[in-house]
C-alpha cells in the first residue's frame, strides 16, 4: 500500500536534514507503529506524506498503491486515500465542523469521479459515526476544533477519518493529551476502521496506545531513519527500557 524508499527530507528554509534515508512499507490490512524519541522526525514524515509545505525531499520516493505521492498536491493525496490525523489539529474559526466535513467528503468524491453525498445521506452517516465517538450535535455545529478540549480534537480527527474512509491512515501521536477513556474511544474508532484494504501508520511516543490498537509491526525511528523493526514486543521493550538501550544496540 504505502511504500517509502530511502526518503531524505530537509527543511526548505534551513539547511537541516531531518529524514536521512527512511525505508518503510505498510501493507494493506496491516497496522504499523512508529515509535521514536522526540525530534526524531516522526511528524516530519507524516507531513511529508500528506504534502505540507516547508519540506524538501532531496532523495527517495513515497508511493501509495504504486502512485507517486510526492508530486501531488495535498488535496490530490487525500483523494487518493491519504489521511493524516494531526498531532495538533488546527482550529478554524468561522467554519462549522459539519460544513467542513461535508465539503471534504464531497470534494474527495468529486475528485474520484463519484457522486456527491446528498445532505440527508451525509447527515445520517455522520450522526451514526459521531455517536460512536461520543461527539454530540453541539460539537458538530461548532467551528472546527475551536474551543475543543485536547480529547475532543483527537476524537474529531477520528471522526473525519471515519467519514473520509481513507486507504492509508497516518495517526500522529493521537494518544497525546488523552485520558484512558478518551484513548479507548479513539482506539475503538480506529479498530472499527481496520480492514483488509486499509493500511495504518500509528505514530506514538508511548506503548499505551498500542495496548488498544494492536500493531502488526513496530518500527523505531531515530535521527531520521528506521533503526529497528520488530513485532509488538518491540513496543514493550521500549516501554520497559526506554530508547537508550535500543539506540545503543543499533549504533
Amino acid at each position, binding site marked *: 500500500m504505502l511504500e517509502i524508499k530511502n526518503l531524505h527530507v530537509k527543511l526548505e528554509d534551513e539547511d537541516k536534514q531531518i529524514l536521512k534515508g527512511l525505508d518503510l512499507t505498510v501493507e494493506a490490512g496491516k497496522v504499523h507503529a512508529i515509535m521514536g524519541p522526540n525530534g526524531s522526525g516522526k511528524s516530519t514524515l507524516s507531513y511529508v506524506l500528506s504534502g505540507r509545505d516547508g519540506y524538501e525531499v532531496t532523495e527517495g520516493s513515497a508511493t501509495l498503491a504504486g502512485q507517486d505521492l510526492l508530486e501531488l498536491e495535498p488535496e490530490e493525496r487525500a483523494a487518493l486515500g491519504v489521511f493524516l490525523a494531526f498531532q495538533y489539529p*488546527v482550529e478554524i474559526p468561522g467554519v462549522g465542523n459539519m460544513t467542513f466535513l461535508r465539503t471534504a467528503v464531497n470534494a474527495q468524491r468529486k475528485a474520484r469521479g463519484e457522486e456527491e453525498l446528498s445532505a440527508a445521506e451525509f447527515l445520517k452517516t455522520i450522526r451514526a459515526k459521531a455517536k460512536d465517538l461520543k461527539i454530540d450535535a453541539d460539537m458538530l455545529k461548532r467551528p472546527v476544533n475551536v474551543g475543543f478540549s485536547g480529547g475532543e480534537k483527537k476524537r474529531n480527527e477520528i471522526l473525519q477519518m471515519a467519514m473520509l474512509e481513507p486507504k492509508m491512515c497516518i495517526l500522529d501521536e493521537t494518544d497525546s493529551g488523552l485520558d484512558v477513556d478518551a484513548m479507548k474511544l479513539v482506539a475503538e474508532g480506529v479498530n472499527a476502521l481496520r480492514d483488509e484494504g486499509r493500511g495504518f501508520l500509528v505514530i506514538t511516543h508511548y506503548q499505551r496506545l498500542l495496548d488498544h490498537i494492536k500493531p502488526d509491526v513496530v518500527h523505531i525511528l531515530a535521527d531520521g531513519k528506521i533503526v529497528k523493526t520488530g513485532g509488538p514486543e518491540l513496543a514493550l521493550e521500549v516501554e520497559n527500557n526506554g530508547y537508550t538501550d535500543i539506540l545503543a544496540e543499533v549504533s
Partner: protein
Amino acid sequence: MGLADVKQGATEARLAALRLPAGGCLAAARQAALARVQTLGLPGRRDEYWKFTRPDTLTETDVTKASVFVSDEAPMFDDFDRLKIVFVDGVYDADASDDLSLEGVTIDRIADVCGQDIHWAKDLYGVLEARGQAPVARPLAALNTAFAADGIAIHVTGTPSKPINLVYLHSDEMSDAMVHHLVRVEAGAEATLLENGPGASRFNSCLEIDIADTGKLHLVRAQGRDHERRAANHMFARLGKESVFKSFTLTVNGVLTRNESVIELLGDDAIAHIAGACVGDGDFHHDDTVFITHDAVNCESRQVFKKVLRNGATGVFQGKILVKEGAQKTDGYQISQSLLLDGDSQFLAKPELEIYADDVICSHGSTTGAIDEEALFYLRSRGIPTADATDLLTLAFLAEAVGEVEDTDIAADIVARLEGWLSRRR
C-alpha cells in the same frame, strides 16, 4: 493661492453648479446646511479624516462616468415580503414602487413633507446631520441636506409586518444623485429598513435616524455590484433610552465608497451595533468612517467591520468611540479586520478611543492578515482543493460581521452572494 483658497474655490465651483430645490418648509434647513458647506468647505486631501481616501471625485463638479452593471443575479431582497420604494438615479419612481401604506408606519416623500405639514420630519431634517458636524466635519452630508431633492420620510409608530426596502437603481452612466431620508421610530415601535443598489454613478445619500425611548430599528444595506460607481453615504442616528439600532452594510465592488456612521447614544441603556462586510477586487477603495458618542449610562455600542481585499484593493477604517463624562457603565467594542488575498492590497486603519468616564469597558482591535496557511493546509489535507479552501476561509473571516445580521434568511442570502462573488474570481 493658499490651501484654504483652493478649498474655497473648489467649494464655490461645486455650489455654483447646484441649485437648491424649492424648499417650502425645508427652505430654512436647506439654507442653514448650505451655510455649513460654505463654512466648512468641501473635503480636501489634507483634512484629518480624508488622509486615506481621496475626496476629489466625490466633491468635484463633474461626475465621472460609471457604466451600468447588468447583473445575472436576482436583486437582493427580491424574494422577501417587503414594501418596495424605488429610486432611479436618485429619483423616486412611483410606478416601480409599492403603495406606501403599511400598518404601523407612515411613509411620505420628502417633497410632500411641507404640503402635508409633517412636523416630526420638519423638525428632524438636517438636525442630526448638523449635530454630527462636530467635532468632525462632514461637509458632503451638509451638501446633501441642502441639495438632495428626493427622499423618504418614514415614521414608525407600531411594528410594521414587513420591512421597508429602498431600492436604488442605477440607469444613467453620468448620473449624479443625492437622496435624503428621515426615519423616526416612536417609543415601543420597531421596524426593519433595507436598502440596496448602487444608486447612481455618483451617489450621495444621507439618512437621519431618530429613535425614541425603547424604539428599535434594524437596517441592512447592500450597495449593489456596479464596479465604477462612487458613493458617499452618511448615516446619523440618535438613540433614546433603552432603544436599539442595529445596522449592517454589505459592499461588493464600487471604485469608491465612503460610508460614514455617526451615532449618538443619548438615553440610558441604549444599544447600537453597526457592522459591515466588504469585498473588493482591483480598482476598489472602501472607507468606513464611524463616530460613536456615548452620552448616557449603561449603553452598549459594537462595531464589527471586515474587509476582503485583492488585486490592489484598498480598505480604510476610521472608527472612534467617544465616551463623555458621566457615561458610566459604557460597554464599547470595536473590531476592524482585513484579509488581504495578495500582497498588492492594503488596509489602513485608525481606531480611536476617547474616554472621559472611569467606569467603562471599551476595547478596540484592528488586524490585517493573509489566509492562515495552517488552516489552509488542514483543509487541503482533507481533500478540499486550494481554491475552495481559500473561499471557505474567506467566508469564515467575514462570518463575524455577517453574523451581526439578526434575520437569518437575510444573513444566508448575504453569505450566498459573497460565495458567488468569490466563485466568480476563481
